[in-house]
């Protein structure tokens, strides 16, 4: 097929005018677009993704989709949103630094999937698939690790999928791809010096002692010598050599934050979150294709506003400095920054005890932020109702977002991956005609 003929067979605007459409019906148009563009990937600009995962579900009203006219029962004390440097876009008053750089990112205010359970919602947003029986899909990070990691052009010593600092925890990120594609969780705390990355940086063991231990181990591996030629043993030997190149070699420097300027570290914020953002930039700089920052604490059932008063300034510092730093280093064009959680929070505030001003889970409408790697800045995709209770224009489903990220990464979202039973499976619900999903289409308007 001459792909250029099918590049954009349907006007994006027309699809948008139709609003929400189902996979069974109008999907055909997007299907063609998807099929055609996947073959050439004219859009693929991104080399890496930094996913800032706000675990627990941050409130859309109090971050990227403020509703100051909804009244106190919806806004609480955050009722004075700030104008950003892009005319017409306002965000929460607690995010002034991000407000100064709205031209660098776009806001997805139409995020929706309708599920209010952490584990199912996390699964949908992190994998870009709707749950079906018999298969657990890999997260976007695991797919990128498969498609862009070892054996696919990446040769770095640092693993291709890194989680700062802990794994996600509510489902297995690798899904059916198996533990080889799990993220490498660093452990430790990047806000401490040294950042004790599990396995890479051991406190209190000098390089000299590492060397003498290594010699001792080599001399005592009697069993391995008796099994020479066994493929498992040979692999383990090779793994030891590779491990030592990490421990004693260059790769260790990727995790060394001590050489970064004090000014920059302060700008990021000297917290675990802030320094994780800095570390993520260093990893991307070293070529790592997918980094997830698992930032907990957004599940604000109780005392929501007190918690947000702590968390928002930290997010504002870390994320804005990350975008600026990537931009200053010329990395933003090739790095997707993707920030959001598994859902939003109930727009109406529960003022009564025991919640004392809390917000529950809300999967019907929420917001994500995307920047870089081919995503345009200064745009808003989707509109929610006057109280942020539902998406009234341009919904974005998790599979729409994931497929868009795949495209920018040069990964065909219509492709398949091998499953443990020797077959193949789709990894995005838009591609799988057996799975019925609603869709708002890919994020073409900002790609």
């Amino acid at each position, binding site marked *: 097929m001459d792909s250029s003929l099918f590049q954009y067979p349907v006007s994006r605007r027309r699809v948008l005018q139709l609003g929400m459409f189902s996979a069974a019906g109008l999907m055909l148009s997007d299907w063609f677009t998807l099929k055609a563009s996947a073959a050439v990937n004219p859009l693929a600009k991104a080399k890496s993704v930094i996913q800032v995962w706000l675990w627990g579900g941050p409130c859309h009203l109090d971050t990227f989709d403020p509703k100051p006219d909804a009244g106190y029962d919806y806004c609480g004390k955050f009722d004075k949103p700030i104008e950003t440097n892009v005319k017409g876009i306002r965000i929460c008053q607690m995010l002034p630094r991000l407000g100064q750089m709205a031209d660098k990112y776009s806001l997805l205010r139409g995020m929706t999937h309708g599920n209010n359970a952490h584990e199912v919602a996390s699964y949908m947003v992190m994998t870009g698939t709707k749950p079906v029986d018999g298969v657990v899909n890999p997260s976007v990070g695991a797919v990128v690790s498969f498609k862009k990691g070892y054996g696919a052009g990446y040769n770095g010593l640092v693993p291709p999928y890194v989680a700062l600092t802990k794994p996600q925890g509510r489902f297995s990120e690798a899904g059916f791809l198996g533990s080889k594609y799990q993220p490498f969780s660093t*452990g430790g705390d990047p806000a401490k010096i040294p950042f004790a990355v599990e396995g890479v940086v051991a406190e209190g063991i000098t390089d000299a002692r590492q060397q003498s231990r290594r010699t001792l181990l080599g001399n005592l591996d009697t069993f391995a010598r008796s099994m020479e030629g066994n493929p498992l043993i040979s692999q383990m030997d090779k793994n030891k050599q590779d491990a030592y190149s*990490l421990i004693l070699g260059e790769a260790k420097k990727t995790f060394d934050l001590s050489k970064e300027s004090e000014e920059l570290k302060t700008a990021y914020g000297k917290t675990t979150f802030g320094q994780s953002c800095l570390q993520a930039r260093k990893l991307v700089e070293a070529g790592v294709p997918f980094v997830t920052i698992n930032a907990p604490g957004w599940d604000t059932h109780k005392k929501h506003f007190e918690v947000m008063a702590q968390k928002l300034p930290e997010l504002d510092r870390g994320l804005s400095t990350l975008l600026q730093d990537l931009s200053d280093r010329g990395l933003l064009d090739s790095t997707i920054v993707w920030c959001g959680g598994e859902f939003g929070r109930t727009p109406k505030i529960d003022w009564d005890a025991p919640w004392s001003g809390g917000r529950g889970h809300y999967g019907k409408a929420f917001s994500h932020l995307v920047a870089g790697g081919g995503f345009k800045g200064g745009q808003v995709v989707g509109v929610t109702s006057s109280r942020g209770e539902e998406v009234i224009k341009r919904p974005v489903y998790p599979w729409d977002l994931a497929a868009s990220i795949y495209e920018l990464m040069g990964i065909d979202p219509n492709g398949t991956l091998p499953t443990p039973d020797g077959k193949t499976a789709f990894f995005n619900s838009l591609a799988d005609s057996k799975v019925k999903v609603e869709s708002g289409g890919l994020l073409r308007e900002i790609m």
Partner: protein
Amino acid sequence: MKRLATVVLFFVVSVLSCGAETAVPQNRIDQLVFAKQSETGFPPSELCSDAIFIRRVYLDVIGTLPTSKEVREFLASKIPDKRRLLIDYVLERDEFADYWALKWCDLLRVKSEFPSNLWPNAVQTYQYWILNALRQNMPYDQFVRALLTTSGSNFRDPPVNFYRPFQERTPRNILDTTALVFMGVRLGNSGWSEEQMLGMDAFFAKVAYKKTDEWKEEVVYSDPDKQMLNPATKELVVPVPLGGKPIKLGADDDPRAAFADWLTSPENPWFSKAIVNRIWFWLMGRGIINEADDIRPDNPPWSPELLAYLEKELVEGKYDLKHIYRLILNSSTYQLSSIPTPQNSADQAGFSHYRVRRLDAEVLIDAICQITGTGEEYSSAIPEPFTFIPASQRTILLADGSIKSPFLEMFGRPGRDTSLESDRNNGVSVFQTLHILNSSHIQKKIMKGPGLRKLLTLSPTPRERVNLLYLVILSRTPTQEEQKIALDYIASADQVDNGSYDLAWALINTSEFSLKH
């Protein structure tokens, strides 16, 4: 010439003193296996030594490293059939049930959260029921019947949870798991026609669920009013067992009972085959039919006679699974050395030498904890109800697949997502190596845990330390050469204790430690 003879003699003696013996048939398994091996041209390796045997049988059967005391006693014993006695002993240890409950919880997808969504209370009671069934050595047919036919509350009638870990609770999804777990058949590979599958689906057509007033309680029951229609013809589908005739049931009959009757009957061609093949796979690292959960006509067994013999033993032994374990463990086939001979080194599929493989994630961390006298801290992400797990509890007893740790993830513990044996990944990776070599997690256990500190206090001389560290970590005594290397290292270290800790660290990092061999 005389000198050469002396050298040869010394070589032979030193090999024999390690306990190497030529394998002779011990039971019917060996007769069948050795006959097949002479056909394929891969003669068996020698028998493994006693030291290797005790470590192997502990790790394979109870997922537990033997203590130095157990190793010493076993090695010192002069009882001629001490291996048989040791097998009987491990089969009676509590850890037998602990370890196999772990495997059954993998197969039955026991986890609180996505995609099983059993919820913590149900996970705890379900795992406890499985554990007790194994402790009491419940006959396998009864165990499966209980899982298939129980009705009641997920909190109070634990086996009903068999019907719960599905995102969509359709008869087809239930059939899919039932066929995989109890028949070793992957529906997608089975070659069964849609009509055959519909007939099998119908056994689960009346399975129904209802909520109660208790938070997250759910009752599983058989609803006489529920029916299944053929989606093509819109006709009522009646239960038809595979290769059998339609089963006539009264309006109030629970078709699940009829299914259990059919499945667990001695004539059923899948039931016994699937479980004996699984046990063989669990102990030998490869199924007679391989993979162990992919039974189909075009995947023939390595030896049909061997499989048939084990099936017959299971049925005649009234579905006593320990009987099958005992037969396999007592065979010379199981007790072969892992070191191949020049004649059998090319053998991939034929059991001519023991297959080396990495310790399961849970077993590995338990072994490190045992050596270092430390525990692991686990906690559930679900706040209510709060799941408390004492640090002293072993990881093999961790009931909930949703409770994770970076270590367990890294070492391929199954996600409990598919019921496939391959859900567990015992492969090796650089990150595993890094973690044991250099993580603060393992370093802390070695350097700060009470286990090794106590050992060093109790054995003041370097020679005693070296011997004891070998026994505790590798379940054997060091060779002379190893002892010399270790003693030289300790002597050259800036402090004797540092040298000893480094030795412990090195032994834990050998492939001998992290592999079953």
